[in-house]
């Protein structure tokens, strides 16, 4: 789960990490008042769950309350398109009004769980302000990586070593180390999967400030963080992905795909997408209905798949195990009727109750083509899309 910048800022502040003065505005009037309160100048920052806001015009320096109101007016209610959003962009429903900061140096700082080392790692770099992926590619030697003990966490001396390696001014070694320790504590205590401060700035008057921050929370740990769970903003997700989440489905919409995929199991779902691509067609989505799905869930999954206007055919690939094939078949029939979709369907069914499932689909009035196995499935879909023949 992603937090908005203003939410992340508050969480940081709660751990004693210095952040810029700022407040949230949902109307131009609030933006004007907030800028007034900051002395007449501010930065107006669109609150969306995506990076690359600056280049996309989502971050605007303004020199007057009127200009702030104008910027807010221009942003709120629109969709911001950045290189990290879908082509339709992410909706801006609020802006953060932050003080302008006189920056001397921009640094980078983050904490994440390193799957290879199996422990949280602090990453830092003197190349702040740019994407860490680019730094990693262009000047990997500039990245400082310090692994914390999986149990003890980050020791203070490690935080100090990072501050020293960042070459901050001597007077800032201690506050920077304290900031790093606090950030690590925040990461662990809130079950984050990523905390990123970019840039971490040294101001001209020698203070260290977390200017912009990004925080992702482990969805699986939200059960023990009810307060964080409340910060979710589903409006930032694709509408179909929202529906899928509500239904307990794992669904990822892909761009420019024509083959809707409905599969049980993540690995098999990826395999299905891959063979679709191999056959010269493009998968329209990843979808794992999960093991415990009931008819209604399958129906909703089908409905979501065919709601994507790019989809020309649906490939159903079920390997019955915990999920029985007859349940899946009934769900598909229900979903097709519910959605009113007349799209062609290609079905592969194996495993538990496969025969019953196939029989249900055969007897339905849907436009179904059957494939015997995985190798046959994709070419069949390609043929169905190309020729239309059932």
């Amino acid at each position, binding site marked *: 789960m992603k937090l908005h910048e203003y939410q992340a800022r508050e969480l940081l502040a709660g751990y004693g990490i210095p952040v810029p003065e700022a407040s949230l505005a949902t109307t131009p009037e609030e933006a004007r008042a907030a800028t007034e309160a900051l002395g007449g100048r501010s930065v107006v920052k669109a609150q969306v769950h995506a990076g690359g806001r600056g280049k996309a015009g989502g971050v605007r320096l303004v020199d007057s309350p009127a200009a702030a109101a104008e910027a807010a007016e221009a942003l709120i209610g629109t969709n911001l398109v950045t290189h990290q959003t879908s082509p339709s962009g992410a909706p801006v429903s609020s802006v953060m009004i932050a003080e302008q900061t006189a920056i001397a140096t921009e640094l980078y700082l983050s904490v994440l769980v390193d799957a290879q080392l199996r422990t949280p790692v602090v990453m830092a770099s003197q190349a702040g302000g740019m994407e860490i992926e680019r730094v990693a590619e262009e000047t990997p030697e500039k990245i400082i990586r310090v692994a914390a003990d999986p149990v003890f966490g980050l020791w203070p001396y490690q935080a100090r070593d990072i501050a020293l390696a960042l070459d901050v001014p001597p007077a800032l070694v201690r506050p920077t180390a304290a900031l790093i320790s606090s950030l690590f504590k925040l990461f662990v205590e809130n079950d984050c999967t990523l905390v990123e401060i970019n840039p971490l700035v040294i101001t001209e008057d020698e203070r260290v400030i977390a200017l912009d921050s990004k925080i992702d929370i482990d969805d699986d740990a939200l059960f023990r963080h009810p307060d964080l769970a409340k910060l979710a903003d589903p409006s930032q997700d694709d509408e179909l992905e929202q529906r899928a989440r509500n239904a307990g489905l794992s669904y990822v919409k892909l761009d420019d795909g024509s083959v809707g995929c409905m599969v049980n199991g993540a690995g098999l779902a990826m395999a299905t997408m891959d063979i679709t691509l191999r056959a010269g067609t*493009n998968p329209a989505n990843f979808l794992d209905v999960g093991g415990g799905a009931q008819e209604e869930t399958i129906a909703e999954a089908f409905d979501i798949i065919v709601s994507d206007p790019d989809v020309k055919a649906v490939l159903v690939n079920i390997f019955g195990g915990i999920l029985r094939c007859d349940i899946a078949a009934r769900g598909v029939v229900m979903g097709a009727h519910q959605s009113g979709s007349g799209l062609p369907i290609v079905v592969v069914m194996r495993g538990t109750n496969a025969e019953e499932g196939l029989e249900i689909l055969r007897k339905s009035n849907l436009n179904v083509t059957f494939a015997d196995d995985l190798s046959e499935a994709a070419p069949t879909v390609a043929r169905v899309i190309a020729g239309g023949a059932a």
Partner: protein
Amino acid sequence: MSVLVGRDTRLLVQGLGREGSYHASACRAYGSNMVAGVHPNRAGAKFEDAVPVFESVKEAIAETDANVGLIFVPAPGAADAIIEQVDAGMPLIVCITEGVPVQDMVRVRAYVVGSGSRLLGPNCPGLITPGENAKIGIMPGSIHAAGKVGVVSRSGTLTYEAVDQLTRRGLGQSTVVGIGGDPINGTTFVDVLELFEADPETEAVVLLGEIGGTREQEAAEFIADRMSKPVVATIVGQSAPPGRRMGHAGAIVTGPSALASNKIAALREAGAHIAETPADIGETMAGVLK
């Protein structure tokens, strides 16, 4: 036995809720020797009128000598259940539970390493040795056949797909091991490859990888340096866009090494036989073994 489980397996099932009971029952039906259940509110009862249920793992092991623990405890309590089994000295712990928080696994993994226990999972289908009727997990038993091919996989249903392709071609399995789809888990590809390499009943191995992480690259290194037996490998997720999580928490492309292409290249380089698509696993293995 082939690897890890077999006719000597004495199964303990922890977490006998709806799902746990269903699968415990299926394991028994397949022939697994379930000797104990653990459930806080059902101590003293008998599961299916046959298997005693205890209130703690320690007590269950003391009474029944269980040597494999299968965990269905819901995610919030899964880490604790694993630790309870470790502290009770369980040799092999299989955690089916999906959705265990990453930081729980950071700590659990550190705790398990150096203990006498081996952990499989979490978020895995378990493992099965068809030739000895030992099914410790949630896979459909009927698609398996006894034989000489070892299978190790990060995924569930894709494993069934691969097993199905093998069985249809008359290629039975020694043991099929699902290591699970989470980024941090107990047993890795390398751990299982090592076991298969040492197992006289395994002649060849199928390795089913995914995008995300670098465990497949570690497997490639092991295959190049230490495997004498042929390995057929496939990596799914070539069509997945970077940065998006594909169901499994571990299946997310975060850098070049997480890409399917990078993993395939490493495995090919290491001498593994690459099944060009997930539909070609059985055929590729048939070619290797003919």
